[in-house]
């Protein structure tokens, strides 16, 4: 229980919150009575003087949360307040730095930075002066008449920062601002952001950053909120007590990273170290019975690769170290781990991954045997694949349209997620030779049946 020392639950806010969300939810109504819950009722506040990081696996509704807090998206239930006024009526002053930069490619750097000021009706001379100053601050002096496409990714995101900061926002929101950049550039921008923040160069009172990069969160944030998924909910919310500047190699740092990994890899267990003070109510759960597992979006080749690596390491290793060895981000590694776990090739205990007997056999086999093992595991553990296979076997012509299964799973997932689920299922099924998929007609086909028709065509 050493990690408890560096964590303490975020105290209930005594200072007045800038943005306060009260039991906000997001769901999408379905034609049938079912509704897809994306985020279950959540309380959250942003208070002055802190950098908050919102961390979570994909599908946990991080971006949706950000959009509800900024007023870009209306919560399905609950209310967001800006200085205790409903956000829809308040004159809010926030900015967003986007993952894709969202710069206007037909406008120069200067015009891009000036545009938000123009929207606020500020006179040209003042606009120009403030923009030039901000461009200077972010280190783009001399590039004001360049177009975004002439700049590198890092410089483009600097323009994004300049545009965000020029309106002097009270809260600066960032939606995975560094994930489209290479490692060095991202690191550089991160430290510059911290410098601006520490020196109070920007009048911003609070920063809210959405990320899937655990180290980034631990490096920057005063407070970390971890989201879980199905539906999105707050798993834990705590303060980071490590002093700035933080050293990635220091003991408290790695311990904290390790702790967050543990929270993220064990979605079914309530986190121990950070008690859930803010949420005295019962943990949010699904309103309906889940029929289908959420398939992690991993490729069979990736699963095999992970298992082989694990076998090399003696069959058991720390997930954090695995990610480090592979230079993987959590969003890349977690689906693979989840998939291997779902198929019974892997077990997760205390943040460690250990290979099962089947997993070891899988990793040691040659490709055809691997496919066989994968097929057995998929049929045993994955309901959707089992159903597709059974439908193909029972139909006389051995083909079933994709829509048939899409209709079944979209009772449970959003439309987009249903598609991705289907894509993963097709990917796995093709690899395991459970079925073939005719992409032109969007139909599942039994492998033998496919060969037959192909043979017929050849004859004709």
């Amino acid at each position, binding site marked *: 229980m050493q990690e408890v020392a560096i964590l303490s639950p975020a105290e209930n806010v005594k200072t007045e919150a800038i943005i306060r969300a009260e039991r906000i939810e997001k769901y999408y109504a379905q034609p049938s009575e079912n509704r897809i819950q994306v985020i279950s009722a959540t309380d959250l506040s942003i208070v002055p003087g802190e950098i908050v990081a919102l961390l979570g696996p994909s599908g946990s509704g991080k971006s949706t949360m950000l959009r509800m807090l*900024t*007023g870009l998206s209306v919560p399905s239930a609950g209310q967001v307040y800006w200085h205790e006024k409903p956000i829809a009526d308040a004159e809010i002053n926030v*900015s967003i730095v*986007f993952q894709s930069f969202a710069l*206007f490619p037909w406008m120069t750097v200067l015009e891009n930075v000036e545009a938000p000021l123009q*929207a*606020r009706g500020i006179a040209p001379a003042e606009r120009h002066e403030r923009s030039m100053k901000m461009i200077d601050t972010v280190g783009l002096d001399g590039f004001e008449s360049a177009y975004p496409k002439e700049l590198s990714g890092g410089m483009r995101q600097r323009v994004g920062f300049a545009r965000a900061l020029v*309106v002097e926002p009270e809260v600066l929101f960032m939606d995975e601002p560094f994930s489209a950049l290479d490692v060095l550039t991202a690191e550089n921008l991160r430290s510059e952001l911290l410098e601006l923040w520490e020196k109070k160069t920007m009048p911003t009172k609070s920063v809210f950053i959405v990320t899937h990069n655990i180290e980034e969160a631990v490096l920057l944030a005063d407070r970390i909120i971890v989201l879980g998924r199905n539906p999105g909910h707050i798993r834990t919310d705590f303060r980071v007590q490590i002093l700035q500047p933080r050293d990635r190699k220091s003991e408290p740092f790695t311990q904290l990273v390790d702790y967050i990994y543990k929270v993220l890899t064990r979605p079914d267990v309530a986190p121990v170290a950070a008690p859930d003070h803010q949420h005295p109510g019962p943990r949010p759960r699904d309103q309906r019975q889940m029929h289908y597992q959420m398939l992690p979006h991993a490729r069979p080749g990736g699963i095999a690769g992970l298992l082989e690596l694990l076998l090399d390491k003696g069959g058991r290793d720390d997930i954090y170290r695995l990610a480090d060895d592979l230079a993987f981000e959590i969003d890349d590694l977690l689906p693979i781990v989840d998939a291997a776990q779902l198929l019974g090739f892997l077990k997760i205990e205390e943040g460690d991954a250990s290979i099962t007997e089947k997993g070891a056999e899988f990793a040691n086999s040659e490709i055809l045997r691997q496919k066989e093992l994968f097929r057995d595991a998929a049929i045993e553990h994955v309901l959707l694949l089992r159903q597709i296979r059974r439908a193909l076997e029972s139909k006389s012509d051995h083909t079933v349209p994709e829509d048939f299964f899409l209709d079944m799973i979209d009772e449970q997932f959003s439309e987009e997620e249903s598609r991705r689920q289907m894509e993963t299922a097709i990917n796995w099924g093709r690899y395991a030779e459970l079925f073939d998929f005719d*992409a032109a007609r969007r139909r599942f086909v039994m492998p033998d049946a496919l060969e037959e028709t192909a043979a017929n065509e050849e004859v004709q």
Partner: protein
Amino acid sequence: MKLHPLARTLVTARTWPFVIDVGVAACALAVFFAVISTGTYWLGKPVPVVPISHSIGALPAYAFYSIVRIGIAYLLSLTFAITYGYTAAYNPRIEAWMIAVLDILQSIPVLSFLPPVVLAMVALIPSHQMGIEMGVVLLIFTGQVWNLAFSFYSSLKSIPREMLEASRIYRYSAWQRFWQLEMPYSAIGLVWNSIVSVAGGWFALMACEMFTMGTRNFQLPGLGSYLQTAADSGDIHALEAGFAVVILIVVATDQLAWRPLIAWSDKFKFEQVESADRLTSPILNLLQRSALFASLPGQLWSHIEEPMYRRFARTKEARVVHPLDEGTSRNTASPALWTIAILALTVVGWGALQAVLMLRTVTWPELKLLLEGAVATFLRVNAALLISALWTIPVGVAIGFNPKIARFIQPLAQILASVPATAFFPILLIGLVKIGGGLGIGSIALMLLGTQWYILFNVIAGAMSIPSDLREVSSLFRFTRWQRWTRLILPGIFPYLITGMVTASGGAWNASVFAEYSRMPGRTLQTIGLGAQIDAATDSGRFPVLLLATIFISLMVVTMNRLVWRRLYRLAETRYKLEG
């Protein structure tokens, strides 16, 4: 005022701008004169049949009148397209309806609009020439507007979400969003569709300047009338001069308007890295160097714009962030909206009822003729498509595989596609009569004239897009000629071929109306077909037949689009797309 980094471009541009400034000023004077003379003609007494002179000296004036018609029709189209597309994209309640209406309207041949539009305009403005002129302009408008509206609408719908969010979070007014996000994002689509639209406009104009409706004759001064009367009187000299002017206009439009516009719109390309090959336009360079042109519009514009931004910023609207998904929250419709909806429904219902009542007067023999015509035209359109495809595929592929020829032919094919085929109809008809071939076959030739270029143009582009390593693979493995075509070339050009065929099929249906029926001095040439029925019904003022024939055509076009083209399109998108 401190030195602005942008100011430097103005200083270095001082090499020869003076001459150009004089040129620009001269242009302005010419425009002034043109407006005055057009104004006096338009506001004069209505003269339905203006006598057409065959002298070559009269040609510039005729060309000018035709250009003015096209220009006004194009501006109207652009305005309408933007309004329509904008309304459809931002009003989810009526969006599906508006798009369905667009789909049907664009399947109606231009000439079907002729009687209602011209009659309405003449009735509206009976005392000026403007009435008849506006009728013709609106007719050209119907030939230009639909694809522009589609283009603008689909551009709006495809704006990346984060860009929209940026415009919301920074509290852009609708005005700022329009000029800084929506228009720039749609610019490239609008430019390319404008090229197609204006070509369509010329196509319609050639046939619309001279027509008969019931007992009334109309003949307006313009290139279309000039060519028609020259052909009627067999004046070869005048015909040649007329063709020269038509081609000159097409080439000049390409060089003076489209190329500069394409080159200029390059900056609106939504790309992250700068692409290597860019179209250049000397005219654009000239304009950009003219000191007058570079500074004046910008300054004028900011004088108008700045107070607007200040005012918008003060409104309550601009103080809050508007959610993007507000459309999904079901707010109940206001009573005013309901009233409008019910009113519209009543008017539409009444109109539809009247039209159906009118249709009852169509006699059985007429209906039989229409059905036969439908079959005949259907076969003819598809024959024209097939023939075009048969010759353009081998030729287009041969050109596309040879980059040297392609670089030279491609712009030529683009220009040829913009030459209005209707301009050549009169002379072709004379030729056909001389050979003795009937219009049944002849009309296919006429349709070909208008449609094959689109296919050729696209096949060349398709062949050029086949990666050379795939071609190398096919020769490495010693593909037979048959394998080469079925495994490499046809799949490779498939998406382009389909695009070309869809455009060509629309054009062929439209051309059928012009191609199947022709009045020559002393006699009328016609063959069985829906197009001929439409023409004949216009001539004789038999509106129920016109309506029914139009319904048939648009039914067939819409059905073909839904059943055949859309499917092939989807197939092309999913299966035959060659990704870089």
